[in-house]
């Protein structure tokens, strides 16, 4: 196995919180130095969250096909290393389901803005300190890491993150059912869900 493949394998393990401390530090170091690796890391994270949380998502058939084609044109290692993927998925999921899941991940990925999230976040407003700290804890078990890739990876309370935004929106819709029982009543609470496609800065 080449050095790069080895590193990708470790990255994948890192995302799953399965690395020992020594390896973790080594991967962090490599991430600091290699922008391409950082991108891979971001992608793994995205796939990871989708694999673990949105298995029941239904995908319109033509979209699945469209995205599946896109995935096929990429080597398998670009998503998860083949071995890990096989070990992880085949036992538990039907193949069709996994294609759908990956399709969703890919759609989310391809829908991202062309500027890399990392660059945009570095240039834009910094996330607040405690958010970053929370991320570090959950992602790397307390390992300090360069903060320019931490914010780009997983979900946090930033409404610009598509996944968090939809989580918040889901909760908001559920909450609205009760909020609308207030005197102001009616559709008012739902206005926010419809109106907030451009969260104010």
């Amino acid at each position, binding site marked *: 196995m080449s050095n790069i493949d080895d590193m990708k394998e470790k990255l994948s393990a890192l995302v*799953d*919180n399965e690395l020992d401390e020594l390896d973790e530090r080594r991967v962090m170091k490599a991430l600091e130095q290699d922008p391409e690796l950082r991108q891979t890391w971001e992608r793994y994270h995205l796939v*990871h969250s989708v694999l*673990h*949380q949105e298995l*029941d*998502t*239904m995908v*319109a058939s*033509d*979209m699945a096909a469209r995205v599946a084609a896109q995935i096929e044109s990429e080597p398998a290692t670009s998503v998860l290393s083949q071995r890990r993927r096989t070990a992880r998925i085949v036992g538990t999921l039907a193949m069709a389901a996994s294609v759908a899941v990956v399709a*969703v991940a890919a*759609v989310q990925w391809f*829908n991202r803005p062309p500027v890399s999230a990392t660059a945009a976040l570095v240039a834009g407003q910094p996330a*607040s300190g*405690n*958010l970053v700290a*929370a*991320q570090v804890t*959950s992602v790397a078990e307390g390992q300090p890491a360069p903060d320019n890739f931490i914010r780009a990876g*997983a*979900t*946090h*309370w*930033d*409404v610009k993150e*598509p996944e968090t935004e*939809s989580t*918040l*929106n*889901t*909760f*908001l*819709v*559920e*909450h609205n*059912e*009760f*909020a*609308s*029982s*207030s*005197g*102001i*009543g*009616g*559709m*008012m*609470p*739902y*206005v*926010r*869900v*419809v*109106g*907030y*496609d*451009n*969260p*104010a800065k």
Partner: protein
Amino acid sequence: MIFRALTRPIFIAVCLVFSTAALAGDAAHDWLMKINKAARTLDYEGVFVYQHESQLEAMRIVHKVENGSARERLVSLNGAPREIIRDQREVTCYWPDKNSVMVEYRKADNQSFPAILPERLQDLDDYYVIQLGSVERITGRPAQRVIVKPADQYRYGYHLWADQETGLLLKADLLDTQGKILEQFMFTQISIGAKIPASALAPGMTGKDMVWHREAEDRKTVSAAPGWAATQLPRGFRLSAHIARQTLMRKRPVEHLVYTDGLAAVSVFVEKRGEGTKPFMLGASRMGAVNALGSRVQDYQITTVGEVPAETIALIGGSVAPAGK
């Protein structure tokens, strides 16, 4: 004798002052009830603007009651044509920009849209000062202004303008604890009571090529005692609903607690995190007047959401603990 001659007019004057104050309060309460009822029972169709921070949105709303059951459609007129359709049974959200459709089943009340209960209305006086303002002109119609001022820093205030004839809310300002406007909503065009064709309530898109997230229908609407509770609540807030549900995206059990003071509502969602799930969402977040807080208790993700000041969310969300401990 002189004493009696003097005290009698004073006594009468005092009685008068108190009774007019009580009457004014009642009239303001009546208007709140009228607004609430109008939004549920009238047929109307209109365009309104909604302002939050520096953003301005325009939306169309259609509301129709047929055989005692209401159906509502809300469409964004700017940007992506997001759409929400709500009836007795479910709420369907079309998000073309996210290529997804979300279907939630209604749990609050299967029979009708929820209303304020009159007994809660009296309680409101403990946490809000509710007064009638002047009659003003909104969207070309005379409108009664109702002022709702919070008594403490744990809730927002409201200025409401209700159509004098029908009670329908024509304009609303949401104010923070300093009295600064957080959000505004106002009809720019409205037609009340005109015949609405069924087609006006149909979604503008089929959702055929979109991803559908449909909530399982066999949800349980709670009988068991809540496993969790907020241990600190601002004055007047109490538990008004408790629902065991599944998260829409992840099909995990979530406990949903609703606390309300009669006007403002706060939801607490408690979800257990298993092995290998995504990181906890921690920290405060804000969407205009809506505040949210993510926190963690043991292996549980607590998410607190509500149209209340951040302080209220922090107090309630920060105090969530397993019930009975």
